[in-house]
């Protein structure tokens, strides 16, 4: 697909063709990010399809996906570039042994000794790329401030080489699990998208696309049960969409055609990943009521 000819409806169709079921609102936001040339900041609970947006975009535009996985302690060396120190050392030794004269500093800090990390790779790419900066809420404030320059001007400064501007502006997708609030400066530079847990209808469609073997009935029962679990006040880690899909697959694997009480008891640990949450659901909802409510037409 071509960025210039992009329309909201066309983009929506492409998302669905790629198996990404979503509302028009999500598409409009992605569309605006692409048209305004701004990074897309996607927030939401884990497992609602934030990272998937970048993957889908890379497939739609047939662009390489460059991923920067964020974590506490991530610095410029790991995100932007690093000098190939081993190669530099070898060069210094070789130079000394062969000619005996010292090597000039500018020779040592040239592109030949530069190791590109995801940000620099995205900026120097001649082709359109999708740059995924995943879980940006995990980095420290200093690194977030450093991202400002990259995301607003699409250029980076390397002291030894000067400023490097993007050859072609990448499509940037940042995701955040909201472990901490991002700075206003970063948010100001982005178009914002929040992905909530899906409605039952939407989740049925997602399960049917991702696990067609589950069939319409079982997909609906799983979606209804998961929705009920998410609504339970005391559940700490609410089930993600991928866990709903896993639950449907698990039920199919056990040969359960429907979410009966017995099937739910056997497989609840697929969708709830700690004992405290399982106990809460048992206490607040009860497996019998969960199964009955899921099976209700």
């Amino acid at each position, binding site marked *: 697909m071509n960025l210039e000819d992009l329309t*909201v409806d066309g983009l929506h169709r492409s998302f669905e063709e790629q198996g990404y079921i979503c509302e*028009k*609102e999500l598409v*409009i*936001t992605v*569309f*605006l*990010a692409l*048209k*305004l040339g*701004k990074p897309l*900041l996607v*927030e939401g609970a884990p497992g609602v399809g934030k990272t998937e947006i970048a993957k889908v975009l890379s497939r739609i535009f047939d662009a390489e996906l460059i991923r920067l996985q964020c974590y*506490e*302690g991530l610095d410029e*060396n790991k995100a932007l570039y690093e*000098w190939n*120190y081993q190669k*530099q*050392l070898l060069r*210094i*030794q070789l130079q*000394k042994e062969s000619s005996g004269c*010292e*090597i000039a*500093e500018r020779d*040592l800090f040239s592109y030949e000794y530069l190791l590109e990390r995801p940000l620099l790779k995205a900026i120097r790419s001649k082709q359109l790329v999708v740059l995924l900066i995943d879980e940006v809420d995990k980095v*420290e404030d200093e690194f977030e401030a450093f991202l400002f320059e990259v995301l607003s001007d699409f250029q980076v400064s390397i002291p030894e080489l000067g400023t490097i501007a993007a050859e072609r502006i990448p499509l940037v997708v940042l995701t955040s699990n*909201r*472990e*901490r*609030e991002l700075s*206003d400066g970063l*948010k*100001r530079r*982005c*178009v*914002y*998208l*929040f992905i909530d847990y899906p409605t039952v209808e939407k989740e049925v469609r997602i399960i049917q696309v991702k696990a067609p073997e589950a069939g319409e009935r079982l997909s609906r029962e799983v979606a209804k049960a998961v929705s009920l679990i998410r609504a339970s*006040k*005391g559940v*700490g880690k609410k089930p993600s969409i991928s866990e709903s899909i896993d639950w449907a697959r698990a039920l199919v694997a056990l040969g359960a055609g429907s979410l009966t009480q017995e099937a739910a008891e056997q497989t609840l640990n697929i969708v709830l990943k700690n004992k405290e949450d399982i106990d809460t659901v048992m206490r607040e909802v009860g497996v019998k009521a969960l199964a009955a409510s899921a099976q209700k037409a």
Partner: protein
Amino acid sequence: MKNNFLKTVGMCPPCCGEGGLNNLIRGLVEFVHILRRLGIKASVAETKDAVDALSWVDIMDREEVKAALRAVLAKSRYDRKVFNLAFDAYFVPPEIRRQRLELRRKRLAAKGSALQECEDQLVRAIKEDDRDWGKEILNLLYLTVEENEKMSIRPGPAKKQFFETIDRMRENSSNDPLPQAAGNAESPLTRWRRQMLKQAVKIGAVPPVKTISTGVEEQDEVIETVTSSLGVDCDSDSILHKNMKKIVDSDLPRATLLIKKLSRRLATRISRRYSRKNKRGRLDIRRTIRRNTSYGGALIDLKFQSRRKQKPRLVLICDVSGSMARYAVFVMQFIYGLSRVVKGIESFVFSEELERVTPYFKKVESFARTMSSLMEKSDQWGMGTNLHASLVAFLEKHRRLLSPAVFVIIVSDAQTIQAYQAAGDLHEIRSRVRDIIWLNTLPREAWKHSPEIIEFQKYCRMFECSTLDQLNKVLSNQMLNV
């Protein structure tokens, strides 16, 4: 096309009559102004983005316009909720807007006369029996009590209790100066106010809405509509931004879960950052190489990155007097959520005296049970406030807890007697610890009217902290930046 959009889709901002693109932009700017009043930090650049965004969507389609503006103006989940309410309240047909304004005028007129009557009544009651200080204390109460709500009080049992408290304070000379009397009168006055507000809401006379006047009637109306809708919500985001004092009992399980989540997140961040290290730190290869180029590449002069910092130690001193007790419960719960990464938390509560409560938290019990047994056994909950006496007791009995690695966190609205002496105690404590972080539940705008707070600020870093969101932000920023 822009005017068609306004007419056909029913998006008729009040200031946009006939007049094309400029009117639309003016309307959009006014809408952004309302959003800012509602707490959304929309910059000029984002307003420009909003205008640009409209050129890329079908402006005949209300939902597309809403989605487009939301994408560029609302940058958090809570902001989106505020945005949705504001959009629906602002972009309405002119006739609906006129009706709503008319209703508002009637409501305000009724409220105005009711408030005047109440104020007269209060002044009369205070001045009875030679209470010549009545007007002065009334003025001081203006600083500490939300004015509109305070004025909607009516006679009742709580009113009687209020005047009894004031009389008691007048008899006791130690309760001078008057600001302290006003501070202490808060608690019975709050009960009185709550009771009267309930009655007023029941008969529909006074809406429970805090008004933020912009000076433009149309904007005020939209802001009031949004704030009143936000007030009745009780999901996690609303609880996060709600004054902790106003979190009702039915929302406590949700609030507890939220605090657990927030404190766990912060604990994880601190534990990653503050690992103990005895060595000089990591080798800085880049600086080392550059430094050693002149030695022919031999690594003679090593350069190191700076040493990681250690886990913080905390001493928590919580005001649990009448106006503060509710806040203290939430703050303590948050702090104890950090116990995995914060070494040896020492906790104290105080109102008129200091009491060490650390042992309560060493028992293996749920937090709710710990707090209820603490409140049952402690004599301090709900009394008046004497920070000076409490800090003197702290310095006498617990001086050993103070060291340069310690953070002292004080949670109080700073409404205390003997404030200047307390500031002296604070000065002494400050000289012995890493820092004093004061979490003040009063709004920041009120601080400049309080000489006590200005005095306390000399010896500590004070932060506004009346919501869980503010609490989380203050602790995150301060404990990660030591």
